[in-house]
């Protein structure tokens, strides 16, 4: 299959991204296209200029580019199982602040697969944990009064109950 000209151009084109401390990241066109936001921005303006991304730091941008570059290469060449293993390694040992900033960056740049990966990883950490454990993991202060908390627990009683089919408490009388 003859290589189509746009694909060839894509390989050579570099996209310039200017981040919070005015550092310029140069990335391949295909890598930049992993971001819907960049895709839209560049389809209007072309690849000549520099795209400003003032709210993203160097550290975060480096991680984002690392992920996108890997996934562009992995698309048809690496098995799904190995990609999953790479993804887990990628996120291992990242502290909460970094994870949070990564989620913000992926939201801004609209990179769904990375956003889902990080959110799923964070969700797995709090799955099936008690409210107190979740507070510890996320370092959240309980700003609910005891009455408020009691009310919420009561509203969400179903979540605190044991699995099982409850006994019917009262008789249901049909009228008429």
């Amino acid at each position: 299959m003859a290589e189509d000209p746009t694909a060839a151009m894509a390989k050579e084109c570099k996209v310039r991204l200017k981040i919070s401390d005015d550092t310029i990241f140069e990335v391949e066109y295909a890598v930049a296209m992993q971001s819907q936001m960049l895709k839209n921005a560049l389809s209007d303006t072309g690849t000549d200029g520099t795209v400003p991304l003032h709210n993203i730091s160097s550290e975060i941008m480096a991680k984002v580019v690392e992920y996108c570059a890997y996934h562009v290469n992995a698309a048809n060449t690496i098995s799904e199982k190995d990609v999953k293993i790479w993804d887990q390694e990628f996120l291992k040992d990242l502290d909460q602040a970094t994870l949070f900033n990564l989620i913000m960056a992926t939201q801004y740049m609209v990179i769904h697969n990375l956003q889902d990966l990080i959110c799923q990883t964070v969700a797995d950490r709090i799955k099936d944990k008690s409210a107190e454990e979740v507070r510890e993991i996320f370092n959240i202060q309980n700003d609910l009064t005891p009455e408020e908390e009691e009310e919420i627990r009561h509203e969400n009683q179903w979540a605190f109950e044991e699995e099982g089919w409850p006994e019917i408490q009262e008789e249901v009388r049909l009228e008429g």
Partner: protein
Amino acid sequence: MESKVQKVAGNSHASHAIFGNNVDILEEILKHLDAKSVGIVSCVSKGCQQAAESEYVWKIICTHICPSSVFETERLQSRVATMGGFKRLYTNFLHPLRSYSHHKHCSSLNEDVIRLSLSLFSVDYYERRLESLRTRNASNFKIHSGITAIDQSPDSCTDIVQKSMKENRRACFI
């Protein structure tokens, strides 16, 4: 791939409770959780409660547990939203039916259970509407009788009674 990476000191001075403060990000995380965990998270803090009430989250939870794509149609989503929302649908109808399915050792929700829950959900909506109509009619009736009483014998009514009638009339229009 070329990239100019400047080594910058890590973001170690991050403020505490970063996840707790941002309701949007919490919603994005909660949508990956099962219903029970979301219910528990709602008790963690005010921000978590707000995120855990989000219809965006519950719509995704309901869609995930449903084997077919019935919850994915816009028409059904807007009907559910009008009739009380996905959270109510799950906690009051889907959850008990799920528990019953597990109790009877059935593997997962099937079409019939989904349809049953939607029917019960509709019945619940109309019952609530009927009830609120009844209460409004009852209070309108009281006001109407009160006004008739005042008109017929204004002297016999004390100031207090007149004042409370006026307050009731005002409440009707809020």
